[in-house]
């Protein structure tokens, strides 16, 4: 067995493993179920064994890999169709805590000690079992926890706040290269990008990274970190202008003596107030 042997065996198995993992897909890399876990370990082990030992025939190794990946592939296919099969092959979750009470049978069945449970909970930042409403062990041995409502993080919904939805930001410049696809997705073009960068006081060749947000605002990171670019807050500025104008209209209505004109001013001041209330959620940062 020479170094050269190891080299060419390694190269062969790198290519084969690469192809197999590409075919089996993302699900196998995440190793969600028992079966995928076994397959993952075995594939690596077979490849390693065949690369390092002379007595192993390369073809035998490849056969082993192909059988394992083929069975795994078909079990994926079958478990998609049948729920019963899915339970058998991929495993079932076990409830460990329900209604805030630890289920001892569940723990015993999975051979987890109370210390193991505590450790898994601590891993999620939970130190009091009392805070947990419901917890179950996933087939892969991970613990998933639902906290009691009072212990859950506060959301805007809990506070009854109306938060406008936001779309995913589009990265339009990456490594100094313009990503035309992202630019198209956000409905902008090169001219627009150039103008916006000009507003920020920079040019395309100086930008390392840039994103467009929901409101079409561009934020850029420059190659030169010493230069800071002005913070764009057009929306907050607009909100301020609306508030000021609304106040001015009210002021005018107070200063005017003619009742006709006064009415127009106060009416429009109210209208401006309505606009402000309506779009304030969209203008806040």
């Amino acid at each position: 067995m020479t170094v050269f042997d190891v080299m060419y065996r390694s190269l062969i198995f790198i290519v084969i493993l690469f192809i197999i993992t590409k075919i089996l897909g993302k699900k196998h890399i995440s190793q969600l179920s028992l079966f995928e876990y076994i397959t993952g370990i075995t594939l690596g082990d077979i490849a390693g064994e065949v690369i390092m030992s002379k007595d192993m025939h390369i073809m035998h190794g490849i056969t082993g890999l192909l059988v394992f990946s083929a069975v795994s592939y078909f079990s994926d296919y079958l478990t998609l169709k049948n729920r019963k099969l899915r339970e058998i092959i991929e495993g079932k979750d076990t409830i460990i805590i329900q209604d805030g009470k630890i289920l001892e049978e569940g723990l015993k069945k999975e051979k987890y000690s109370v210390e193991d449970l505590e450790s898994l909970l601590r891993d999620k930042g939970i130190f009091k079992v009392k805070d947990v409403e419901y917890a179950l062990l996933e087939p892969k041995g991970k613990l998933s926890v639902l906290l009691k409502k009072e212990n859950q993080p506060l959301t805007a919904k809990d506070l009854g706040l109306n938060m406008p939805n936001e779309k995913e930001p589009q990265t339009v410049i990456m490594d100094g290269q313009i990503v035309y696809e992202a630019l198209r997705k956000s409905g902008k073009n090169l001219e627009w990008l150039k103008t916006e960068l000009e507003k920020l006081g920079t040019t395309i060749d100086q930008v390392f990274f840039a994103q467009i947000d929901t409101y079409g605002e561009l934020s850029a990171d420059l190659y030169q970190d010493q230069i800071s670019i002005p913070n764009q807050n057009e929306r907050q500025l607009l909100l301020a202008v609306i508030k000021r104008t609304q106040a001015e209209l009210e002021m005018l209505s107070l200063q005017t003596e003619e009742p006709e004109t006064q009415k127009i001013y106060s009416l429009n001041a109210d209208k401006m107030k309505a606009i402000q209330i309506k779009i304030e959620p969209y203008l806040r940062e």
Partner: protein
Amino acid sequence: MLLENFIEIKKTLAAIKGIEAQLSILALNSSEEEAQIALHEAMIEAGQIKHDIQKTVYTLERNKKS
């Protein structure tokens, strides 16, 4: 009508025009439909306010000349 007051109105009118334009730009630039609709509606309402104030300015100008 005081001259000072008249300048004040003109300034406010200019600000309203600016708001309308800015709202229009924002509505066009937004990718979220809900925001687009709200901003567009706000733009139309700002346009109505602009119209009202514009008319008042015309009336005041006419009164001033006569």
